[in-house]
């Protein structure tokens, strides 16, 4: 009854797509208008926190090696940490602006977790490519939440922050359990699925 791993990736892709849309809308409308309705201010931080919670069962039921499990556990923790920090900032419970660095830290840790737990080369199979791609996207993309933390009203930083999530969503939608990437598939990877 468990979903195949690729289905789980697609479900998370949808979550990241929605997250990207929320943040893009906030970047376009501006923080003041976005927070005019109270629920909207909590929307993306609580969504991130929730996705972090959902990452725990993924870690428990879908990882087939220790390093895989550690990576998924790291994503679960940093997503919950970033979501909680942003919730605290929005609510006013957290006042120190250094808490804004929680999200760039989450990006960096997530990116490094992708890069460190992938054992194969870029073109070994599609998931290997996506791990490298997502890892570098998040490591380099951490610049956007960092700039956003330093200059919260800078539209470019906010839009870039949102678009990183959209790119992550596209990459996750492209994931398959076993498939070639740009025509490359190592014979060691096994038989491609449908």
């Amino acid at each position, binding site marked *: 009854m468990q979903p*195949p791993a690729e289905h789980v990736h697609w*479900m998370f892709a949808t979550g990241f797509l929605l997250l990207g*849309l929320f943040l893009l809308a906030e970047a*376009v409308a501006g923080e003041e208008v976005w927070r005019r*309705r109270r629920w*909207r201010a909590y929307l993306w931080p609580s969504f991130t926190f929730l996705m972090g919670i959902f990452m725990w069962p993924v870690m428990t039921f879908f990882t087939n090696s220790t390093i895989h499990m550690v990576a998924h556990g790291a994503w679960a923790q940093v997503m919950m940490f970033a979501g909680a920090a942003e919730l605290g900032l929005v609510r006013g419970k957290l006042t120190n602006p250094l808490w804004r660095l929680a999200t760039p830290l989450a990006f960096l840790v997530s990116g490094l977790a992708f890069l460190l737990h992938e054992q194969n080369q870029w073109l070994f199979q599609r998931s290997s490519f996506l791990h490298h791609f997502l890892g570098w996207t998040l490591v380099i993309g951490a610049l956007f939440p960092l700039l956003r933390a330093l200059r919260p009203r800078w539209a470019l930083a906010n839009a870039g922050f949102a678009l990183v999530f959209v790119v992550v969503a596209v990459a996750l939608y492209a994931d398959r359990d076993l498939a070639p990437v740009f025509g490359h598939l190592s014979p060691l990877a096994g038989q491609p699925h449908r």
Partner: protein
Amino acid sequence: MSTQTATHVRPRARTLAPRQIVLSVLGPLTALVGVTWAIAQPYRITLLHPYDQGFWWLFVQPPLWILLAGLAFHLFVARPLIEDLDA
């Protein structure tokens, strides 16, 4: 006695600001991406050939989920936000 039953309705001219235009196209554009994917890879829509498919293959349909995400975002997030920009 007046036989004129049609009442005059003042046309409501509404000019959307650039920010409102961007917000109003985000959701439909996302939905369009889902539709395009569904047309490009119809075999991804297992509802079109549901026999011998397990629950997860029928439930998780990425092109349809993108379509739904775009529509839900438009209805529940973008529309109220556009109204707030108007105010």
